[in-house]
């Protein structure tokens, strides 16, 4: 093994022997592109002509007035092609797959955003594509399943384990150990064995690079706090990494509080006592697990945050005190989402709405001279079924009922 990628005591490469050669090869290719300025230019070019980069920052004037606190800015990752920051990582890995001359990509997906992004990239670059998705998530994210299939990907519902994101990752690994000669596993978040945490963060760092430049240009100073939601941690790593050296900028990661910490139905790894350090899915980090080391069930209204582990880089940043971690409950998230839609006319994804919820909680205590930045990692259209249920919209229910009657006729 060439290199194992540790961040403090976290990370590593706990690999089955069959994958060691594949990972060595991947580390080699990644090190090459990292040191190749041509590659980054090619990446920026693809992201500007195929996705919507640079994505803007939006001044949320109405929300600012509403809270009568700091100026609120939003980094608009929802404006990426396919509607989320996931495109940044996927297009980067896609270019890498071309260099590696592999012909097939596989991916796990929770909310379906990473699956859609991967299927899109595969369509553009001409790769075969298989997406693993927990059966529970297939149920709650049908629109994304529809698009993946339209894009030519095969979507395999995972019926094992808790049937959500972590189980989809296990199945993707099982596919990879069989097909690694032709296949690259496009892991969607800054987790897993080395080099994935570093590589995914590297591609996502484009968010923070842009955001820092944009906010300096607009405001002439840096924000007081930056908020990002944390599932696996890729959008948070993306925006935070642009500000690691700015010690006065406080970085706040917001985890999925689900039905509340006391309910045990949550996905809070870094800001609760329910998690402990362990090793699974090839890396060492904080996991929600029992005392024997068996992974626990997690819960969140946002499928993309419903994950049992977290980026080892974020675990390290937590230990070092560089990032503060908080949790937002499902209820707080829905409220923040409704408020944001009504006040600003932007629709954050349920995942991203966690960052909004925490920012809204803290904003009233902050000074009007301050300024904060929220990463809107994705757009909420995909969540239409979940959000419609959460706000219990009668007209939507009527529409769905009529639609169903038509299909049944």
């Amino acid at each position, binding site marked *: *093994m060439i290199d*194992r990628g540790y961040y403090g005591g976290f990370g*590593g*490469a*706990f*690999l*089955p*022997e*069959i994958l*060691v*050669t*594949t990972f060595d090869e991947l580390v080699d290719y990644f090190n090459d592109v990292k040191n190749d300025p041509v590659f980054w230019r090619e990446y920026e070019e693809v992201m500007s002509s195929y996705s919507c980069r640079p994505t803007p920052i939006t001044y949320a004037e109405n929300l600012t007035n509403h809270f009568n606190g700091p100026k609120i800015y939003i980094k608009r990752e929802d404006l990426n092609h396919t509607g989320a920051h996931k495109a940044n990582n996927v297009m980067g890995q896609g270019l890498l797959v071309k260099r590696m001359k592999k012909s097939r990509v596989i991916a796990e997906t929770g909310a379906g955003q990473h699956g859609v992004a991967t299927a899109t990239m595969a369509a553009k670059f001409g790769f075969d594509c298989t997406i693993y998705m927990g059966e529970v998530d297939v149920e709650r994210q049908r629109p994304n399943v529809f698009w993946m299939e339209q894009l030519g990907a095969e979507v395999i519902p995972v019926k*094992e*384990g808790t049937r959500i994101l*972590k189980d989809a990752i*296990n199945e993707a*690994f*099982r596919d990879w*150990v*069989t*097909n*690694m000669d032709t296949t690259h596993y496009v892991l969607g978040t800054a987790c897993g064995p080395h080099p994935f945490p570093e590589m995914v963060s590297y591609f996502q760092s484009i968010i923070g690079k842009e955001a820092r430049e944009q906010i300096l240009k607009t405001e002439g100073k840096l924000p007081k706090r930056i908020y990002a939601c944390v599932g696996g941690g890729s959008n948070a790593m993306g925006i935070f990494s642009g500000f690691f050296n700015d010690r006065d900028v406080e970085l706040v990661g917001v985890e999925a509080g689900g039905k509340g910490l006391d309910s045990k139905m949550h996905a809070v790894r870094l800001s609760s006592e329910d998690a*402990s350090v*362990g*090793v*699974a*899915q*090839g890396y060492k980090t904080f*996991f929600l*697990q029992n*005392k*024997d*080391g*068996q*992974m626990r069930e997690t819960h969140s209204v946002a499928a993309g945050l419903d994950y049992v582990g977290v980026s080892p880089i974020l675990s390290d940043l937590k230990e070092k005190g560089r990032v503060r971690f908080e949790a937002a409950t499902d209820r707080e998230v829905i409220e923040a989402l409704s408020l944001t839609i009504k006040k600003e006319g932007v629709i954050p994804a349920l995942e991203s709405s966690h960052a909004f919820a925490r920012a809204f909680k803290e904003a009233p205590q902050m000074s009007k001279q301050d300024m904060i930045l929220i990463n809107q990692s994705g757009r909420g259209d995909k969540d239409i079924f979940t959000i419609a249920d959460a706000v219990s919209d009668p007209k939507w229910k009527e529409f769905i009922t009529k639609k169903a009657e038509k299909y049944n006729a």
Partner: protein
Amino acid sequence: MLRDYLENRLKEKKILLMTHIVLGYPTFDDAYKIIESMVEAGVDLMELQIPFSEPIADGPVILQANQKSLSGGSTVSQCFEFAHKVVERFNIPFLFMSYYNILYKYGVSQFVRDAAETGIQGFIVPDLPPEEGEEYLIAAENHVTSPIFIFSPTTSDDRMKYLASHGKGFIYCVARKGVTGAGTDFSDHLNSYLKRSRQATELPLALGFGVKSKSDVDFLKGKVDIAVIGSETIRLVDREGVGAVSEFIKNLNTD
């Protein structure tokens, strides 16, 4: 020592049989009966898998056995108690197989020490390469027990030597890419891989992944020292019950 036992056995048999069970599956009582039949049918050593919720190297059969054992409430401490019972009762070597998190949460050194004191003779931890296993290797050395490492067809000659330098007891060669339980084509294309494996180490070689029948075991005679039967006995128990195990193993074990 495990290796001495294996080398002595190999003076009497052309190929040894190692079988595998998932602890607590279908129940601990059934697992005990399965072991009893296997030992009586002439199995030479056994892997006892401590179930884990995320067994990424295992295919559907063993994966489900892991999950069912856990949903039945199996704990690591029950696995230790069970291991103690079978080690006392049956006179063959038993190994623990599990994923690293089980050792890590227990405390790696403590796990190895407690297992060694229970009479467990070795460990197979498929997601723990030697690079990540310093504490594990030191503990195994201190408690005179065997860390068993894995070769795969994608492992280079140099890496085989590296793995073998940390391994004790024997080397577990996986027959092919993929996870446990899928079919393996036992034909001459395996020869060059097994030859490379043989050249890399003096340790006995075991071969597993997809070994299902007497013809598979016969094919392996003279090529490796141990044939490993994993998923197939679980399938058999699922299909025909515990009673079918004895005849299946006896048939594999005839010369």
